């Protein structure tokens, strides 16, 4: 009954899309939330049965095939779902957090008209359905359905306020950038099919596992490397890594719950999931893994630095998301697949929490997003403040909150797998994370109310009237998050506190259960332990010789780093704000560079967009289309017309004449054949 998990949200989508206009907000909202909740329940049950299962050579999986979707030659693709530890974790995250965010949205979107409201929830449900297909799919094509579907939904939801130019622009940008990634993804799939003749994850894994595993380049692995690189390109597109991250910050044009669900918790992690899902493949392509790790860590740093100076509350969170995703890819890159997924899972909690918190703030301030116009909200929005604070601490990586365990796991794995440099950079990134997150916290909630600061209303105007609550901001009374939103916030906050404890490392006397739980998903069925990823193995090895002491030390160190970051933020942004300005003055260049996001958008525009425009308008349109194609078509038309003017004379319109000619033909042909 796995199919029910995606099917329920889909049904919700159908209903809301079809008759949503005529439903009241309460009904359509409850419907959407209800199906998500139901789907969560079913997911929970299925996972329970899965856990209850006796592992077959160390692997538990529920596989259900529904019908043969594609069948041509050796390509046999059943529409099949597989629930194994990895996908079960994902399913729980998606349905669980999804449900909360739906609940949150019922209050958050309440100012929309009934039709818009229904449209919003239909998109949201559709997204959930596709995301679930993505994670449940047992083969690349099935995953690809979800992959494309979530892309579509993210496009629709980013451009939800399509009347606002910036929103629709952002939607298009997201879609196009993702297309580039998807192109890579498709090519990767094809390469794999060409090389291994199957697209089922398990079969691929077991086939790859049989290849001899040496880092040296040899025939089999070039293909594998190429394929994995292409797939990784797809991942960078979907999960907003360098160089394709540019769409995510703009995606903040969408409603905040959407940012929370799609652009923080679930969709953007699809790339990570995909790599985890194909752990065996990637771990047999060490080169790719290196690339992944480097890209990841660089992205983490890069985004962190940008996040440091952004003033839009949601954009800060967006960049932090990018950098956290960078962490996950780093983990994947160093072969700490479990670690990556672990971080994905915790990140889902606190990032969703943070976004929803920011949403609550924006909601309270009637659409104000510029943190320079906030401050001192601590007193007015207690619930929001506390939950947001919890989230911030969690992401900063302060024990014992969720972020700490996962991030530290990654750092340790990085270090222990002899990626010292990467480790260093990652630590810096962690430092930055702590800093800018607390900057955000301070500027938003502490100090006293500022508004009308230069650029503030400029930013405000830039975003038009983004989130609900139009009209002039009324600061007289600020209402805290209403019921549903509060519930969502609190639940997520609790989650951000506790989520980490499933992965308490051995050093702290915890038995890293989540790793044990997930580990089978990164092995090839049948291929025994020796086929387990080499990098993983080496990691373990170093873990042995490195010893517990070292690990503990590093753990302490990273915690201190985080604390330092927090301290810095406290000093600069809370105690003596003027320092910040002075620094900005001193390093004006750097500041401008960061504020301009390294001018990557402009770079792309100059190097890619404009040339393409030139070529297509100049050559393709005027030359090929207008000249060649139209010319040919018209020419054919002219010729035909000319001839028909002559030939139509033969058409007398008299039945008898036609019969006659036809019959002459008959007689002649019969005669001819008799003659020979």
């Amino acid at each position, binding site marked *: 009954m796995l199919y029910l998990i995606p099917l329920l949200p889909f049904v919700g989508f159908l209903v809301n899309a079809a008759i949503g206009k005529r439903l009241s907000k309460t009904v359509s909202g409850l419907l959407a939330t209800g199906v998500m909740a139901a789907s969560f329940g079913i997911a929970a049950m299925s996972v329970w049965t899965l856990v209850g299962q006796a592992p077959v050579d160390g692997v538990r999986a529920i596989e259900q095939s529904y019908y043969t979707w594609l069948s041509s030659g050796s390509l046999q693709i059943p529409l099949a779902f597989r629930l194994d530890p990895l996908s079960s974790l994902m399913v729980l995250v998606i349905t669980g957090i999804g449900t909360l965010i739906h609940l949150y949205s019922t209050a958050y979107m309440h100012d929309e008209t009934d039709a818009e409201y229904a449209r919003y929830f239909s998109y949201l449900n559709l997204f959930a359905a596709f995301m679930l297909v993505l994670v449940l799919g047992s083969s690349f094509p099935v995953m690809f359905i979800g992959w494309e579907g979530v892309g579509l939904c993210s496009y629709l939801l980013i451009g939800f306020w399509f009347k606002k130019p910036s929103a629709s622009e952002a939607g298009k940008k997201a879609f196009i950038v993702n297309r580039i990634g998807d192109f890579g993804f498709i090519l990767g799939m094809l390469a794999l099919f060409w090389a291994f003749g199957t697209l089922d994850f398990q079969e691929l894994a077991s086939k790859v596992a049989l290849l001899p595993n040496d880092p040296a380049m040899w025939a089999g692995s070039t293909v594998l490397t190429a394929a994995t690189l292409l797939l990784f390109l797809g991942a960078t597109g979907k999960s907003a890594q360098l160089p394709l991250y540019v769409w995510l910050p703009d995606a903040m044009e969408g409603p905040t719950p959407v940012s929370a669900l799609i652009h923080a918790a679930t969709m953007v992690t699809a790339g990570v999931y995909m790599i985890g899902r194909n752990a065996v493949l990637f771990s047999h392509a060490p080169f790719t893994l290196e690339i992944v790790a480097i890209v990841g860590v660089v992205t983490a740093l890069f985004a962190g630095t940008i996040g440091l100076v952004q003033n839009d509350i949601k954009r800060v969170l967006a960049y932090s998301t990018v950098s956290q995703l960078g962490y996950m890819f780093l983990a994947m890159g160093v072969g700490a697949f479990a670690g990556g997924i672990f971080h994905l899972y915790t990140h889902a909690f606190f990032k969703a929490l943070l976004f929803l918190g920011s949403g609550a703030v924006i909601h309270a301030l009637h659409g104000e997003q510029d943190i320079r116009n906030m401050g001192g909200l601590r007193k007015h929005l207690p619930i929001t403040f506390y939950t947001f604070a919890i989230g911030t601490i969690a992401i900063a990586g302060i024990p014992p909150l969720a972020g700490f365990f996962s991030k530290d796991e990654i750092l340790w794995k990085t270090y222990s797998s002899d990626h010292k440099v990467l480790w260093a950079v990652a630590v810096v990134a962690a430092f930055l994370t702590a800093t800018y997150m607390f900057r955000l916290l301070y500027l938003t909630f502490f100090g006293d109310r500022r508004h009308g600061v230069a650029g503030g209303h400029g930013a405000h105007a830039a975003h038009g009237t983004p989130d609900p609550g139009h009209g002039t901001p009324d600061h007289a009374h600020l209402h805290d998050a209403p019921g549903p939103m509060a519930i969502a916030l609190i639940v997520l906050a609790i989650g951000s506190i506790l989520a980490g404890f499933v992965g308490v490392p051995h050093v702290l006397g915890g038995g890293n259960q989540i790793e044990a739980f997930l580990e089978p998903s990164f092995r090839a069925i049948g291929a025994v332990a020796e086929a387990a990823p080499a990098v993983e193995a080496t990691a373990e090895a170093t873990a042995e010789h490195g010893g517990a002491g070292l690990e503990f030390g590093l753990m302490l160190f990273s915690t201190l780093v985080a604390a330092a970051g927090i301290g810095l933020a406290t000093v600069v942004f809370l105690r003596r704000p003027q320092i910040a300005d002075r620094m900005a003055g001193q390093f004006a260049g750097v500041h401008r560079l960061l504020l301009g996001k390294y001018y990557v958008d402009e770079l792309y525009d100059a190097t890619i967009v404009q040339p393409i425009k030139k070529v297509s308008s100049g050559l393709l349109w005027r030359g090929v289309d207008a000249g060649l194609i139209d010319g040919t078509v018209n020419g054919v038309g002219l010729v035909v017309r000319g001839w028909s003017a002559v030939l*139509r004379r033969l*058409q*007398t*319109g*008299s*039945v*008898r004449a036609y*019969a006659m000619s036809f*019959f002459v033909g008959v007689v002649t042909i019969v005669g001819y054949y008799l003659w020979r």
Partner: protein
Amino acid sequence: MLPEPTLNSYLMLSAVLFAIGTAGVFLRRNIITILLSVEVMLNAVNLTFIAVDRFRGLVDGQIMVFFVITVAAAEAAVGLAIVIALFRHKETLTPDVFTSLKW
């Protein structure tokens, strides 16, 4: 005494009938009669089918005959309907008058 009918004699008979039918199509100036000539042709074909059936000891030919008859029925229905419509418009049944279906 008359010669025993061979398969050929049946086929020749049907050939003659068919030819007569075609001749009718060309000779007559009355749409209805032309339709009748078409029926003659169809029957010529039917005769062939049944003769060959008898010759090979099958039933398929007869089934073909049934189909032919069915189609003939359809053809007659539509054809006659058209005839009526035409007659309403031009008050004549001469096919050569209805030549407006052209450039």
